[in-house]
């Protein structure tokens, strides 16, 4: 018998020993970061960067496959007992000696996860991880001249690049309200002192928003540079317009952070994505009734919110709990009770 076959036999036996649980349920108690476990990480330190930004040092589980500079990672954090998932750019170099990875998070107003990470995350906490992903990355062949155009926390993926590869000719234009809001400011200035980077800071509180027309004066050869831009939508839209006006759009790489703003309304268009049906619903009819009315096979039981026999994934949009008025927004893994939830704006139900 081959060793893999032997292994799988042994594993089957172990499953018989632990049924109805799995061996991993017990192993997780002692070694949650082991190879083969669901991918997790442990927060090891939280370093403040500015008044509202901090770098989180994470020891990833053994299953972590590494990343490419510029990529992001989705993490699942328990905030007030509830697991929430968000994506953050990786700011650590890909060859960090101790194998740790870092993300740098800026607390946004009312941001549940970002405020939690910046202000109250404790070293030792376990978090859930996905593998790194994203195509806002450097090409294999180093371009001769590079421009980074960033604003606010848009600097984070770029920092991952700057720490990873050294360029012969790199320029950065970075916007932030005031000097003390510039994340990684000391490190950037060290790079400038070492002649690894030319940097222009635009302080929007005093200078106003960056006017793209100024780019000619700040970086006269911008059109010849391979450019990576990351920041709010306004900045990126303006950049895309300018680059395509000059016919050099293939030199511009952008990364948009989607804050995922869902406007919760009253009723809306409901899509049953598994069945491919779309119907209009008001804000008072339970989605269970809406689905049944449309001829979608909906699981149900008590029809009054107590049996949990109707739970169904909410893929997109938002729903309102008809009992409490509470709004639930779609996130991976979010399930709703269709018998006591109504559409709060357009939504997508996996049925």
């Amino acid at each position, binding site marked *: 018998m081959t060793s893999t076959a032997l292994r799988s036999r042994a594993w089957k036996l172990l499953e*018989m020993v632990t049924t*109805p649980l799995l061996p991993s349920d017990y192993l997780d108690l002692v070694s949650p970061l082991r190879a083969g476990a669901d991918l997790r990480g442990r927060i090891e330190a939280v370093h403040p960067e500015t008044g509202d930004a901090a770098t989180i040092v994470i020891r990833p589980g053994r299953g972590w496959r590494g990343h490419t500079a510029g990529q992001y990672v989705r993490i699942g954090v328990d905030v007030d*007992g509830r697991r929430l998932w968000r994506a953050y750019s990786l700011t650590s170099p890909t060859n960090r000696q101790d194998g740790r990875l870092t993300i740098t998070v800026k607390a946004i107003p009312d941001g549940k996860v970002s405020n939690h990470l910046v202000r109250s995350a404790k070293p030792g906490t376990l978090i859930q991880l996905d593998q790194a992903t994203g195509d806002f990355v450097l090409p294999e062949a180093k371009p001769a001249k590079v421009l980074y155009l960033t604003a606010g926390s848009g600097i984070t993926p770029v920092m991952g690049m700057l720490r990873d590869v050294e360029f012969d000719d790199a320029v950065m234009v970075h916007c932030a309200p005031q000097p003390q809001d510039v994340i990684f400011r000391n490190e950037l200035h060290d790079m400038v002192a070492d002649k690894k980077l030319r940097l222009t800071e635009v302080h929007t509180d005093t200078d106003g928003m960056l006017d793209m027309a100024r780019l000619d004066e700040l970086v006269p050869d911008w059109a010849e540079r391979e450019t990576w831009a990351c920041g709010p939508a306004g900045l990126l839209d303006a950049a895309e317009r300018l680059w395509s006006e000059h016919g050099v759009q293939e030199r511009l790489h952008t990364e948009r952070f989607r804050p995922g703003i869902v406007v919760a309304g009253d009723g809306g268009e409901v899509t049953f994505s598994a069945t491919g049906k779309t119907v209009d619903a008001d804000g008072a009819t339970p989605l269970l009734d809406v689905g049944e009315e449309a001829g979608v096979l909906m699981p149900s039981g008590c029809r009054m*919110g107590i049996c949990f*026999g109707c739970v169904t994934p909410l893929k997109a949009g938002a729903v309102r709990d008809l009992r409490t008025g509470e709004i639930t927004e779609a996130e991976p893994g979010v399930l709703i009770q269709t018998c006591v939830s109504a559409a709060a704006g357009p939504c997508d139900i996996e049925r």
Partner: protein
Amino acid sequence: MTAIDPTAHLTAEQIEELGRELDAIRDEVIASRGEKDAAYIRKVISAQRKLELVSRGVLLFSFFPPAWLIGTAGLSVAKIMDNMEIGHNILHGQWDWMRDPKIHSTTWEWDHVSPSEQWKHSHNELHHTYTNVIGKDNDLGYGIMRVDEDQRWHPFHLGQPLWNFINACFFEYGIAAYDLELGRNLSKRRRKNPEFRARAKAVGRKIRKQVLKDYVIHPLLSGPSFLTTLAATFTANLVRNIWSHSVIMCGHFPEGVQVFERRSIKGETRGQWYLRQMMGSANISGSRAMHFMTGNLSHQIEHHLFPDLPSNRYAEVAVKVRALFEKYELEYVTGPLPKQVFSAWRKVFRLSLPNKKPKVKTPNRDQELVAA
């Protein structure tokens, strides 16, 4: 269905007001669910797993009598924790709000021969929706017992103390059988129904796994302690079954608890539904350890009002619920475990015989009367 309706003094408006007050209690807990609650269930799960591991470890040496005793006691407690405070409550969706796929009503499987999926249907859906409605709620007498004077007596009922005792010993199998609605489904035609066959197969699979684990694999792993480990597991299952059967009997069987007719729930309002849960359930009083070991089903009344609130919050909810019972002059049936178990068993014995004629209503002397 009792001779005197204990809710007759309430007007329709009062019942709706009562419903609104209960909704407010519920909303308060929902708004305050958080980190502490999540930490609680995680801690309980991890403690249960460790206790089970250690107990099974000790049983490897169960040829040595003190090890047998310790291991068996530990395993019994671990199994009770798995079924009561953890399994029952997770399967009610009490912890779904955490959005942890590992502690979720849609993914949890428990140490019990009835598959979670089927149990959720018969328990969450049928029992909790139709609480104490004769003919709709299978938990009422589990289809084999007469639990109310108004149910027709049949000579079969003479044996019901014995049926109840056997059911207590093999409770998990009893549950699996009635989750399958075996009584109804044994006719030839029904047996062939593909949906029934699929469910019966699932139960068969689960039983096989459970039996294999408890009575073959673990004893084999114990080597020289084969027989003593086998005996230990059998004992732990017996203890768990009798314990959960007793706790559950206390929830709806003691004297003073009302049962309802099918037609009484037609067009039921939210307030009326709440009222039925209040009158159809009974609590067990006792220490915190007692509440924990019953999976907080000692707060059966609160659990039936709010089946999806986290179990660790029932104790604080109970204070407010009890105040409402007083305000609306209703009887809050509660008492210590031995008294409630005795009360339930006495009813089982009494109703095994036909009604005495003429029917006299005995006052509920032994119940704790909260109503003024």
